[in-house]
Every structure is written in structure tokens, then in C-alpha cells.
């Protein structure tokens, strides 16, 4: 029998084409064998019942089957049509089976009793359609002994199945299909990837572990079930099969185990088989249990926790039998587990696959019907559910309440309380709950419109910008990291597989960006999380919108570079005066061990005034050697291998150098700065490896290439006419930055200067090399402790934060959308590719999008940002974020999904660009116009209310406040005295700060602290965190008798009113009275009072959410101190800007 089976298998194999895989599978199969025994141990019998659950799988299979059925059916007698996809898999299975069979046979023989099983096994093979074939073969082998029947049956079945008839015969066939789905998977998984095989082994072990006794049985059961299916052909057989399963399971178990998923399928298959004929019904319960068991297996192993299903399964079965299949369908188990996810994910394809499976089932069912009619029903029912799922997937399932609220017209002239009580959250895209659950976190990936308009015309009509705000490398608490030989990507657009793709069946997926249908590689069939096969949709890549891959050498142009840090330090007289060197050296010594890197980490130092000083830190020297190069017009590197040294080897020398550095130049009288040549030297030094260059500069560069002249006219600082010199004076820094970018060198600039230093020109060095810019105006180590403190905090974070080297980021989006412009620090290498020499967790990017073709064909639009970088440990990694959003055709839906914060940030970026290419006043006008256009567009298109006044949808009600706040920012304000460097720095921050941080800078959060209560407090880690209400940024809200906290992102201002209660001052600040509060209080003392604990809990909670630590400034209500606080009350009139009511009035006048 087995022999025939094999022959069949062979034939099937030919179909499968996967023959080669088979070979692989064989190996696995062997492993399986080992597995099988355990299965046997499990005491398959009970599990066999579980197998019945397997039917669920079959159901799923059936779904797939339909599609495939025709084709497969033709080819395969199996009629398992479904198996089409599976064919390959099946082949594998077959091969595996073949291999396994012998062992199995042995095991089977032991199981011999399983002859019934044998039948079952045959059915089991069927599960994977191909499998069926294979299974028969395999089964045969195992069966051969006991299951000759099967063998024959299986064979018979195939023949019978041939086209339509097959179905009828299907009992056997049917089972096969069911099996097929599962089986294919199994084979694929295990075999393809050697790991898989091992995994299988592990899986088996898992199963064993999970329910050793049970598991095996289950395992076996599936097989048995399969056999059952075949038996199904012999109706009786099928039923026995279940019981047999235990036995069959041994052999089959392998399959199951190997493919946990598949197992589950198999079980289903088995169930189906059983169910297929009468099997289902009989096995129905058992099968249910089986299903659950599979699930259990998986769960037990890893994920299939759903297993609880065991019990559920039976229920399902009952349901199925009862005809409740549709709902509780075993498929539901698997389906729900698997299919449902798809559905939820909006895997349109997946549902189909399932459908096919069901179809196959249906096909089989006919045959089965004789056996077990009920089985069919369930299956058929699944279909509807599937379709429902798919429609739900469409993402159109609305959240009416939310939408209604977002669309509620708000009359800005009448409603004064616009702020929500708590900090504004990103709006939820109007997607089905399943999709929403897996969608990318808004902190990493946010779109200005959470409902994408269908056409550019609609977008234009809405008068809102379409764009993405990305924070791709932010520190994450949880990140699935995937190591895999093959990273599954679309073959035409190279999109990484993600939760929003559609699985057409087990072997194919449809890209959600370009809609190409791709094959699922064999390796992908194995799920490392659940250690099961045949569940590609349960892989972590498909369960998480943010994942990280460990990339293979395909993703390298050269071996991953070591972490390399070069510090370029200004040691001119000016720098010595400012006194940063001492603090920097101390911080670096303290953090030497925390520098991200591994044993290859390299460091180097370079100082400059009017000459360039290199430091030889070669291991073995007794002390660092300074090499001075004074020819700054033609810079050269005095020594090539000893200037950048291995940190580990030369650690002591580095420490020596850092300790002595501050003293070495303390008497320097050199006032010139040759920054340009120093950067050229740094470039030459770093070119061979790439890495990070950190530049500390304290004045305008005055010597050599890149020297600059002062361009700022202090009298123009408060000009309302427009601001000159926002752009670079020379392209030297830009060109150098591009060269650096080409050599994977990122340059970060720390500018500590009290004089004008032309940041507009200097910042180019960081802008185009993907670095970051830090600016400390008026830095002095004694005169300006606030800046010193900030400097220390920033440097510490800077030195220890994560870093990625030689990175590129590509942003892909659904066909029809295209990228218009990028904002941030990087070099744009092609229309969708950013070259980032370094990438750090604190910088963000923005992308303006346009809609080139109508998106009417699809209901979902997806965006994927893939960041390929070399970690500090020398690993090449790819971090992938995928965002999925619904596409809408109604203007009101567009407004309902508008994300006012994201829009504000994107507009800010666009305004910065505009002020550079055109003029500042243009940029300001454009911002005001953005508000005017939105108001008039909403008025004329959406709002039916003919009321006068300014009406906006609730989702956008804060837009005018934010625009006004933007206009009052340092970057964009006019009329108020603003130093050019500070303005330029504010512009740099707009471009690179993540959204949350930027919004706090633009529109700080204001809270009243003295009357905080525990009402509505959050309980976090056993600490109550009070949640005071947000207040409008207006002096009206600030009372003399209160204490107010303003959260500006990088600083907290705690303003204490003149008549603030002494209790608060005493309990929180530890001062006896208002008068005794010191002038420069910079921290909140840790007092053991309720009030103090509340305030500190709240501050800590706010602090927790940001990477740079913010300092607290306690401000008294005195003219000298309160300026920074009142300056940020953006709704009030300032010396040169209007108040919010005035601004609204201005908007109203501007409206046509």
C-alpha cells in the first residue's frame, strides 16, 4: 500500500514541483519521526478527537480548495483542489511522508492498532491536498502496515476524485483536501528551512511538552484523521480513523508537529475527512477537540494558547454538526485563529484561501455528505463568514460615534473651551478593529489624514496637506526581531511582508502596495513563535506592523562597519572661555562603557584652533601623542592607523587624553577657528570606515576653507519685514556633508556660542549627513548654569543613545500615491530613498505625499517605511513600519479623519522650506492661508449650517490655535527680537523633532498643580499619577493664587503665583513662603508630603515619555523671571503678535 501511496505521492510530487523540497522535507520527516513517537505517547486517541477539530482546518482548506480545487482537482484526484497551492507543499509532504513513512511505519506498526488510524492517516495526508496525495503515500507507508486500506483508498480516492466525482468520492478526497492544506504547510515549513525541520522536531517536542500524551495523540490524530478521510471514502474507515488518529498520528504526527499549523490543519483535515464523510460528524466532536488540540499544541508550544480551544473545539464541532459551523466552525477555530486574523487583517486573499479551503470542503463535503453532511454545512457557512470578514477588512467598517464626534461642527467664535482635558491623542483610523489592533503605533508613523482621500481632486478640495510623520528609529519597548534566511518581500515592489497583505491561500500572498501575487517561500510556512507549520499568517511579520529583521549579506555593500566615533573639539580661546571641554571630558569618561558598540568600537579625537591637532592613541604608547598639522589649506592625515583606535585596546590612553585635555589648552590665546579644515581632516580620517563625527564649535569659523563672515545685523533682529540670511552663505559645508554622506559619515554639531556663528551655514554639515544639531546660546560654564545643565543632559543622552550606521530608509506606498517632498536631516538619493549616514532614535522625518492616480480601486492605503542600518554591534538590521489607512471618497470622511497635530507639524515643515526658498513673510502668509482655506473649504463643502462665524469640524477645532502658536514660534515670528542663530536652530528643530516633542514646543501643555486631586488619576506601578486638566495658554487661566506647570517639551516651567498657598510652597518646594523661594530653583525637592508626591509622580510620568530629560525651572511671579512663561501663552497678545480672538477675526476677514 505504502508503495502505491508513494507512487501517488510521486505523481503528486510531480505536481508539486516541490520535489526538491521534498528532499528537504525528508530530513524533517525523519525528525518528525522522532516527533511521532511522542505523538504516540501522547495517546493520540483523545487528541484524535482533537483532530476532529482539525476539520476546522479542512474547512479553511476547503475555502482555499475551491479555487484550487478546479485546477487541483483536475490534476489531483484529490479534488482537494485547494491543494493546488499545496501541491508543492504536498509534494514536500509526500516526500516527507515517504521518508517519514518508514519510520512512521515502524511507529505505526507499534501503533498498529491504529490501522483504523491508518485509515485516518490516509485522511491525514489528505489534509494537505497535495498532502492527501502525499498523505496517502505517506499514510500508506505507515498505513501500509495497518492502513493498507488507506493506501488503496487514498489511491482510489484520487482516481475517483478526478474532477467532480472526486468530491463525491471525496470522502477520501475530501479528507485529503483538508489534510492538504495543513499538510502542505507542514511539509513546506519544515522541509524548506532546515531550521524548520529542526523546528519541527522542536515542535513535536513542543507538542509533546504541551500535551505530551495528548499531543501525540493529536498529532497522530491528525494523521489518523487524514486516514479517516480516506476511510471516509470508506465512510466507516474515516470514523475509525479518528481513533486511529492516535496511531496514525505517530506517522502523521510528524507532519502535524512539523507543521503545527499544518497539524492543526491536518487535524482539521482529519476531521474533515472524518467529517468529510460521516467523519466530520463522528469525528466532529473529536475533531473539534482535535482542532483545539492542534491549537493547543501550538498554544501549548507557543501561541496556540487559543488552544483553550480544546474545549471550544468540541463546541465548534457541535456547532458545526449542528450547522452552526458557520460561526463556530472548526474552521472558526483555525479559521478564527488563522483565518480570522487574516480577515481581521484584511487579508482579502486570506479569506479567499479559506474560502477555497471551504470550497474544497464543500467539494469534499458532497462526498462527505454521505458521510457527514453536517461537515459541509459548517464549511459552507465558513464561506459567508469569510466574505463578511473580507468586507470588514475593507477597512470601511466605520466607527460612527467617533466619526460623528470628529465631524461635529464647532463654531470657533462661540466655543471657548477647545482643549480636551488630556493631552490630545492621535485619531484612530477608521478601520476594522482587527486592522486597527495591528496597525503601526502613531508614535512611529502618523499620517496627517487618517482617511486617505481617493483622488487628488478630493484632497485639493479638503485643503489639507497629505503627508506622513515618521519617527522610525525611536526607542521601543517591544520589538519583534526576526532572524530568517529569506526575508519575504514582494517581487516587484520589494515591499516587506506585513500584516496588511492578503493571503490568497497557504502558498500565495498578494502585496498590499502593488497588488502583485507572490509565492510564500517554504521557510515562511514555519512559524517560529508557535513553532508550527502552515500558518504563514501567524508569523510575527504578519502579526506586527513594526518588526525588525536581521538582514543577510544580501543587504550589505560591504561588511558591516564597526561603531566609529570621532570627536572634533574646538580648543580656541573662545572655547576655553566657555569651559565646555571639562564637562565634555568628564561625561565621556563616565560614559565610555556606555558608548554603543562592541569589541570593534573605534574612537578618535581631533582638536583645532588655527591648527589641527591629531592624537595618536596607539596601544602600547605610554601617553597620547599629539600631532599638529598647521597647513590648513592642504590638510593631510599624519598617521593612518593610530588615530582611530580600538576603544577596548586603547582605553587607558583615551582616558588619559580626556583627563588631560581640558588642561592642555587652558592658556590658549588663539582666537581663530579652522573648523572647515578640521572637518576635512575628520572626513579623511573617517572615510575608510564611516561612522559618527561629533563637532563641538564655539564660534564663527574664520580660517581656511569654509570660513564665514558675520551676516547678522543686530538691528534687524526684530524687523517685521523679513529676515535675511536664513540660507547658507557657502556651499562648502553642504558639499562636505554630501561627501560625508557618501562615505557613511554622519556629522553632529554642538554649537555653544554666545556670538553669532552662522548656524545657517554650519548646520548644513549635519543636515545633509543625517546628523543632529544642538545649540546652546550664551553657553558659559559658570554664568549660565541652565545651559550647562542642559548641555550635560543632552551630551549624556547623546553618548549613550542607540545609533545605526550606514543606513538607508525607503518609504513605499500604495500604488497611486507618490512622495512629493521629504523633511528632516538626510540626503535624498532617489524619489523614495533617503540616505542616512547615521540614524539616531531622536530624529524624526516628515514626508509630503501626493495622489497621482485615483485610489478608487482599493479600500485601504498602506505606507511602509523600511530602515536598513548597521547596529552598533555590527549587525545589519531592517526595521519595518507599516501603516494602513482607509481610503474614503467623501469630503466629510476626510475631515473626520484629520489629525490636527500631524497637519500642524507638516505645515510647519513646509513653512520652513518656504521661508528658505522664498521669504519668511511668505511662509507666514501661507500658514495663515492654510487656516483660511480650510475654514472656507469646510464652510462651502461640508457644513450645511448657514450660520455665520468660523466653523470647523471638531477634529480640526484646534487648528487655528496651533497656527497662531506656530506664527509665534522663534522660527517664524517677526517683530519680536530673535537672534538669527536661534531662529535657524528653531527651524532645524522643526524639521527633526518628533511630533509629540514638537507639539509641546509649539503649544505647551499647561496644568494647574496646586489643586490637583487623585480624581481620575492613573495607577501606574503602584503609583497614583494625578491627571490635571489641560488649560488654554492664556493669562486668563493663570491665577495669582495657583501654581502652574508648563510642559514645553525640553523644559518644564513651574510658575508660582504671588498669592499661591503657602501649603503648596511648603509641601512641594520646601520653602517657608513665597518670598523665600530662591531665584534659580531647578528641581523639585523630594519631600514626603502628599502634595509633593503627587507633583513628582506627575512630573515623572511626563518625563517618562521622552528621551531627553527635561529640566524644571521654578519661576516666581516677578517681572524678571516670568518672561519665558508668559511668552509661551500663545493665545495672548504679545508685543508683536495678535491674540487668539484677534487672529480669528483676522481669519474671518480673509475669508472670501
Amino acid at each position, binding site marked *: 500500500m505504502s508503495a502505491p501511496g508513494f507512487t501517488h505521492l510521486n505523481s503528486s510530487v510531480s505536481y508539486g514541483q516541490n520535489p526538491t523540497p521534498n528532499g528537504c522535507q525528508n530530513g524533517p520527516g525523519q525528525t518528525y519521526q522522532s516527533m511521532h513517537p511522542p505523538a504516540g505517547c501522547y495517546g493520540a486517541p483523545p487528541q484524535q478527537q482533537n483532530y476532529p477539530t482539525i476539520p476546522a482546518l479542512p474547512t479553511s482548506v476547503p475555502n482555499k480548495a475551491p479555487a484550487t480545487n478546479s485546477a487541483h482537482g483536475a490534476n489531483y484526484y484529490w479534488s482537494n483542489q485547494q491543494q493546488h497551492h499545496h501541491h508543492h507543499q504536498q509534494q514536500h509532504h509526500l516526500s516527507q511522508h515517504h521518508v517519514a513513512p518508514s519510520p512512521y511505519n515502524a511507529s505505526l506498526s507499534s501503533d498498529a492498532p491504529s490501522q483504523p488510524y491508518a485509515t485516518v492517516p490516509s485522511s491525514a495526508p489528505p489534509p494537505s491536498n497535495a498532502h492527501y496525495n502525499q498523505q496517502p503515500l505517506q499514510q500508506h507507508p505507515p498505513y501500509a502496515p495497518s492502513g493498507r486500506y488507506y493506501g488503496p483508498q487514498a489511491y482510489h480516492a484520487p482516481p475517483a476524485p478526478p474532477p467532480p466525482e472526486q468530491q463525491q468520492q471525496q470522502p477520501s478526497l475530501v479528507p485529503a483536501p483538508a489534510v492538504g492544506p495543513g499538510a502542505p504547510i507542514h511539509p513546506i515549513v519544515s522541509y524548506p528551512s532546515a531550521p524548520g525541520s529542526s523546528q519541527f522536531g522542536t515542535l513535536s517536542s513542543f507538542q509533546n511538552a504541551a500535551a505530551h500524551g495528548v499531543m501525540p495523540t493529536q498529532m497522530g490524530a491528525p494523521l489518523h484523521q487524514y486516514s479517516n478521510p480516506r476511510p471516509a471514502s470508506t465512510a466507516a474507515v474515516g470514523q475509525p480513523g479518528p481513533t486511529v488518529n492516535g496511531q496514525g498520528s505517530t506517522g502523521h504526527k510528524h507532519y502535524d508537529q512539523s507543521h503545527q499549523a499544518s497539524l492543526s490543519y491536518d487535524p482539521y483535515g482529519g476531521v474533515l475527512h472524518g467529517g468529510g464523510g460521516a467523519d466530520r460528524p463522528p469525528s466532529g466532536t473529536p475533531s473539534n477537540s482535535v482542532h483545539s488540540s492542534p491549537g493547543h499544541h501550538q498554544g501549548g508550544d507557543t501561541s496556540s494558547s487559543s488552544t483553550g480551544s480544546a474545549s471550544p473545539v468540541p463546541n465548534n464541532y457541535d456547532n458545526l454538526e449542528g450547522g452552526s459551523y458557520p460561526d463556530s466552525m472548526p474552521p472558526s477555530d483555525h479559521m478564527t485563529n488563522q483565518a480570522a486574523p487574516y480577515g481581521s487583517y484584511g487579508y482579502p486573499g486570506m479569506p479567499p484561501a479559506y474560502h477555497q479551503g471551504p470550497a474544497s470542503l464543500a467539494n469534499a463535503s458532497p462526498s462527505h455528505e454521505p458521510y457527514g453532511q453536517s461537515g459541509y454545512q459548517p464549511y459552507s457557512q465558513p464561506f459567508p463568514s469569510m466574505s463578511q470578514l473580507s468586507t470588514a477588512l475593507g477597512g470601511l467598517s466605520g466607527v460612527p460615534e467617533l466619526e460623528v464626534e470628529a465631524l461635529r461642527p464647532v463654531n470657533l467664535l462661540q466655543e471657548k473651551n477647545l482643549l480636551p482635558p488630556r493631552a490630545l491623542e492621535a485619531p484612530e483610523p477608521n478601520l476594522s478593529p482587527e486592522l486597527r489592533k495591528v496597525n503601526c503605533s502613531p508614535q512611529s508613523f502618523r499620517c496627517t489624514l487618517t482617511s486617505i482621500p481617493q483622488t487628488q481632486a478630493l484632497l485639493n478640495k479638503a485643503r489639507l496637506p497629505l503627508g506622513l510623520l515618521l519617527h522610525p528609529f525611536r526607542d521601543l519597548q517591544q520589538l519583534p526581531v526576526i532572524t530568517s534566511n529569506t526575508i519575504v518581500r514582494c517581487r516587484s515592489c520589494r515591499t516587506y511582508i506585513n500584516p496588511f497583505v492578503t493571503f490568497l491561500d497557504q502558498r500565495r500572498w498578494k502585496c498590499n502596495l502593488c497588488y502583485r501575487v507572490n509565492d510564500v517561500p517554504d521557510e515562511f510556512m514555519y512559524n517560529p513563535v508557535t513553532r508550527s507549520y502552515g500558518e504563514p499568517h501567524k508569523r510575527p511579520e504578519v502579526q506586527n506592523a513594526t518588526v525588525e529583521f536581521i538582514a543577510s549579506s544580501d543587504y550589505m555593500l560591504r561588511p558591516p562597519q564597526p561603531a566609529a566615533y570621532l570627536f572634533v573639539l574646538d580648543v580656541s580661546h573662545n572655547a576655553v572661555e566657555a569651559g565646555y571641554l571639562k564637562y565634555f571630558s568628564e561625561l565621556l569618561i563616565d560614559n565610555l562603557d556606555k558608548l554603543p558598540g562592541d569589541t570593534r568600537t573605534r574612537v578618535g579625537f581631533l582638536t583645532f584652533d588655527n591648527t589641527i591637532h591629531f592624537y595618536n592613541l596607539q596601544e602600547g604608547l605610554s601617553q597620547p601623542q599629539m600631532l599638529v598639522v598647521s597647513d590648513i589649506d592642504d590638510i593631510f592625515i599624519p598617521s593612518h592607523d593610530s588615530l582611530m583606535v580600538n576603544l577596548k585596546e586603547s582605553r587607558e590612553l583615551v582616558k588619559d587624553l580626556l583627563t588631560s585635555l581640558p588642561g592642555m589648552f587652558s592658556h590658549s590665546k588663539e582666537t581663530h577657528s579652522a573648523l572647515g579644515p578640521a572637518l576635512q581632516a575628520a572626513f579623511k580620517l573617517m572615510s575608510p570606515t564611516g561612522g559618527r563625527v561629533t563637532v563641538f564649535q564655539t564660534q564663527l569659523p574664520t580660517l581656511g576653507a569654509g570660513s564665514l563672515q558675520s551676516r547678522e545685523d543686530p538691528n534687524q533682529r526684530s524687523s517685521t519685514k523679513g529676515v535675511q540670511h536664513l540660507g547658507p552663505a557657502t556651499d562648502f559645508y553642504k558639499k562636505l556633508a*554630501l561627501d560625508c554622506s557618501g562615505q557613511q559619515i554622519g556629522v553632529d554639531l554642538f554649537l555653544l556660542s554666545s556670538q553669532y556663528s552662522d548656524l545657517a551655514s554650519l548646520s548644513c554639515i549635519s543636515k545633509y549627513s543625517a546628523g543632529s544639531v544642538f545649540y546652546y546660546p550664551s553657553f558659559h560654564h559658570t554664568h549660565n548654569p541652565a545651559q550647562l545643565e542642559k548641555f550635560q543632559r543632552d551630551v549624556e543622552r547623546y553618548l549613550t543613545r542607540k545609533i545605526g550606521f550606514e543606513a538607508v530608509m525607503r518609504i513605499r506606498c500604495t500604488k497611486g500615491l507618490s512622495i512629493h517632498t521629504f523633511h528632516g536631516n538626510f*540626503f535624498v538619493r*532617489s524619489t523614495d530613498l533617503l540616505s542616512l549616514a547615521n540614524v539616531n532614535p531622536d530624529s524624526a522625518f516628515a514626508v509630503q505625499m501626493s495622489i497621482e492616480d485615483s485610489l478608487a480601486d482599493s479600500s485601504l492605503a498602506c505606507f511602509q517605511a523600511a530602515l536598513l542600518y548597521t547596529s552598533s554591534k555590527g549587525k545589519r538590521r531592517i526595521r519595518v513600519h507599516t501603516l494602513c489607512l482607509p481610503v474614503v471618497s467623501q469630503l466629510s470622511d476626510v475631515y473626520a479623519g484629520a489629525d490636527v497635530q500631524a497637519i500642524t507639524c507638516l505645515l510647519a515643515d513646509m513653512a520652513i522650506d518656504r521661508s528658505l526658498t522664498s521669504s519668511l513673510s511668505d511662509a507666514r502668509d501661507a500658514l495663515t492661508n492654510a487656516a483660511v482655506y480650510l475654514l472656507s473649504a469646510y464652510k462651502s463643502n461640508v457644513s450645511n449650517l448657514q450660520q455665520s462665524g468660523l466653523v470647523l469640524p471638531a477634529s480640526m477645532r484646534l487648528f487655528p490655535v496651533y497656527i497662531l502658536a506656530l506664527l509665534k514660534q522663534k522660527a517664524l515670528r517677526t517683530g519680536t527680537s530673535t537672534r538669527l542663530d536661534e531662529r535657524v536652530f528653531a527651524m532645524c528643530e522643526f524639521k527633526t523633532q518628533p511630533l509629540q516633542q514638537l507639539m509641546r514646543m509649539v503649544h505647551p501643555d499647561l496644568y494647574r498643580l496646586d489643586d490637583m486631586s487623585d480624581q481620575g488619576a492613573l495607577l501606574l506601578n503602584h503609583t497614583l499619577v494625578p491627571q490635571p486638566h489641560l488649560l488654554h495658554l492664556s493669562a486668563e487661566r493663570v491665577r495669582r493664587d495657583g501654581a502652574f506647570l508648563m510642559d514645553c517639551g525640553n523644559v518644564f516651567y513651574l510658575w508660582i503665583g504671588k498669592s499661591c498657598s503657602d501649603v503648596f510652597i511648603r509641601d512641594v518646594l520646601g520653602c517657608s513662603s513665597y518670598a523665600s523661594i530662591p531665584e534659580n530653583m531647578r528641581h523639585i525637592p523630594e519631600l514626603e508630603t502628599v502634595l509633593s508626591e503627587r507633583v513628582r509622580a506627575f512630573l515623572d510620568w511626563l518625563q517618562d515619555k521622552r528621551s531627553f530629560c527635561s529640566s524644571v525651572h521654578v519661576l516666581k511671579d516677578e517681572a524678571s523671571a516670568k518672561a519665558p512663561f508668559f511668552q509661551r501663552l500663545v493665545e495672548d497678545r504679545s508685543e508683536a503678535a495678535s491674540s487668539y480672538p484677534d487672529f480669528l477675526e483676522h481669519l474671518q476677514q480673509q475669508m472670501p
Partner: protein
Amino acid sequence: MAFTFAAFCYMLALLLTAALIFFAIWHIIAFDELKTDYKNPIDQCNTLNPTVEKVKKIKRIKIAIKLVLPEYLIHFFFCVMFFCAAEWLTLCLNLPLLAYHVWRYMSRPVMSCPGLYDPTTIMNADILAFCQKEGWCKLAFYLLSFFYYLYGMIYVLVSS
């Protein structure tokens, strides 16, 4: 029929316009490549800009001074020729383009070398689209003027 200076100007302009047409086509192709991927904008700007570097000066100039600046110079050159030949109508037809060239070069981004295109901004969709449109318009203009010069040359030859 006599071979006048005006006729010579037209003949010269005819030849040079053929060269300009070639430049325009080259320009269009280059930007199209850039847009449809996947050419590095640094390379792009290096070939479009006449970059003059100390070391590879001569070679670079020969290769790189191909496009923008030469185009402007050629156009300026035969405008001067027409001026000398007192072909006022032809000159008037060319003045708008001459003015555009002057404006375009004056408003170029800050660069230390001759050239128009900044690799860091060229990937901006607006700038890219503008450059492409510019290429097509120039191509059309040069094509029309080619036939105009042909006609002008024959007319001058015949009438004199």
C-alpha cells in the same frame, strides 16, 4: 543672391540650434531618469553642472561643461550675432529666453561652482517637475527656432 553676414548668422544659428536641441533632449532624458529612479542625484548634478575642480580640471571641463552653461553661452552668442547683423525681429524672438536664462542663473542656489542644480533639493517633486517642464519647453522653442532660422536663412539669401 549674396552671402551676407545675416545669412552667415542664420547658418551659424541653425547649426548651434541643432546642438541646443541635442542638449535639451539630453536634459529631458537626464531628469526623466532621475525621476523614474534610480540615478544618484550627486552624479546627476555633477554631469549637469560644469564642475571645475583643481585636480581633474581639464578632463572635467571637457566632459562636464556640456550642458547648462554652454547652452546659455551658445544662446547668448547667437543673440549677439543677430544683434550685430541687425536682425531685430529674430533678436526680439530670442530676448525672452535670454532674459529667462539670466534670471535663472541669478536665482540659482548658493554654490561655489558654476551650475544650476543642487543635489539636495533636486529630488523635490516640485523642482523636478519644473526642470522637466523647462526641458520640454526649451526643446519646443529650439525646434521652432530651428525652422525659423532655416526659413530666415533662405529668405536672406534669396532676398539679397
